[in-house]
């Protein structure tokens, strides 16, 4: 054990497109402790999502080494839950069946009664009581996000990889989900890597904000967010400390965003 739960040692990623090699992520070092909530912000294509995919074991780094819990990640990492902006609930299965689907797989096979118990707990946790038999098509956008969250949490992964999970929600609903995520994830119990374009969202939720430069991505600055917990996500934007952090990080981010648009 190296101490850190997730350890990136000089990892980079180069994609081959036609005959061009495109470097998405230049060699990067980062250590993430157990229970950390780390937000990644940066322009599109800066390799934020690539890091998440590598931690999940979906992609191999082109160079460098990546450790999870002290062991190198060289296969699908079953200790993580992954949630993207895309809605990946199966439309032909009910809320109950969607939430329970990870427990039907061979790698997490759970007997039916135990599965139903866990599903009930999850439905209570995310506040979807009364919608057990509904299909995703019958739910609002926010409710579908709750189902996706419950499906990810039901197998109790240590680490949550969230790639703009609330990107498609309107501003108010986003705040509601921020409140929920604080409560549900139980800050300090789960390790979270949270990719977002929304700097306010990053500061409101995270213990640390990592700002990436434009492609090829590299870490520009890592900032600890010293806002006390628990945070009132609905009012935190009016706290003077929030404004200071927001200004400071925005100054780092804005040049990169401009560059990202130019190329």
């Amino acid at each position: 054990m190296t101490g850190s739960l997730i350890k990136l040692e000089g990892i980079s990623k180069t994609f081959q497109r036609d005959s061009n090699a495109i470097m998405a992520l230049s060699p990067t070092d980062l250590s993430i402790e157990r229970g950390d909530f780390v937000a990644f912000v940066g322009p599109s294509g800066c390799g934020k999502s690539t890091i998440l995919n590598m931690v999940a074991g979906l992609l191999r780094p082109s160079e460098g080494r990546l450790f999870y819990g002290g062991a190198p990640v060289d296969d699908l990492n079953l200790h993580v839950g992954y949630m993207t902006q895309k809605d990946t609930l199966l439309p032909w299965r009910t809320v109950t069946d969607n939430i329970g689907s990870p427990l039907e797989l061979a790698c997490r096979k759970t007997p039916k009664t135990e599965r139903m118990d866990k599903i009930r707990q999850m439905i209570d946790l995310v506040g979807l009581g009364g919608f057990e038999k509904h299909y995703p098509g019958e739910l609002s956008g926010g409710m579908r996000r709750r189902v996706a969250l419950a499906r990810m949490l039901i197998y109790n992964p240590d680490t949550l990889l969230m790639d703009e999970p609330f990107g498609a929600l309107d501003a108010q609903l986003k705040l509601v989900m921020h409140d929920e995520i604080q409560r549900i994830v139980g800050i300090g119990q789960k390790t979270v890597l949270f990719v977002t374009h929304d700097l306010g969202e990053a500061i409101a939720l995270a213990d640390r904000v990592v700002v990436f430069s434009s492609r090829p991505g590299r870490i520009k600055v890592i900032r600890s967010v010293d806002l006390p917990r628990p945070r009132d996500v609905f009012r935190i934007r009016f706290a003077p400390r929030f404004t200071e952090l927001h200004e400071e990080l925005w100054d780092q981010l804005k040049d990169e965003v401009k560059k990202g648009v130019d190329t």
Partner: protein
Amino acid sequence: MTLATRDSEDRIILAAALARTDLRPATRMQWLRELFARPAGRLAGQIAIVALLLAIWQFGSGRFLPHVWVSSPSAIFARLISWFVDGSIWIHLAATLSAAASGYVIGSVAGIASGLALGLSPRLERILSPFVTALYSLPKVALAPFFVIFLGIGVESKIALVAVTVYFLLLYNTLDGLHDLERSWASAYRIMGARQQEIIRHVLLPGVMPWIFSGLRIAVRYAFTAAVLGELIAGNEGIGFLIENSAGNYNSAGIFAGVFVLVICSVTATQIIARAEKAVLHWRT
């Protein structure tokens, strides 16, 4: 909370609807608008349109439309009645329906099976896709003479033409569906730790059903078209033959009567598939 939101959304929509009706000026056509707002009123309107067109056709035939080309609704109706009374229609109807249905079943089963095989085995798809694309782009009608030489002018050549036409429709619908599922849901399942076998069973097979059904629904039309085309080209029975035969005798009433029978068959068959689709894919809203 979410329930409350939904409720208030409903109320807003209702309020907007009310406001719109209030804003609309009362005109002399108001009663007509209200009539068509109801399903029964719409049906009455549709019947009225058909009746009007038939009346113009009937009145105009022989006056400002040459009867020899356009026939007339009464002549067409008389022709239909005579076909059913003397029973001659049944041979032709049976020939067309059996060719269309057999070809449809053979083509669908083979098309779905091939689509699944290619979609579930990327290696196979990479090898075969240029051939499949080439055959797909070929107008299947061009094969009709070949089938006649090869299988004769009986029902077999028509079945073959229908089957080939339906085959490619189902193959491509199934394949497109599997690709689409692969991009969205399958990868989500893979991240959860699903093995390929589990992805096929939990995601790909149930998920591709909407694509298969839309292929089956569209294929009904193509099946009838192909069967009739086969009969027009060569044959001695079937609705297509009946139409061709009537045309040869300058009997336009026979042509229209044949077309009418075909439309009824095609619409009925499509409705049956659409009903089945609705029952199987009940989760779609």
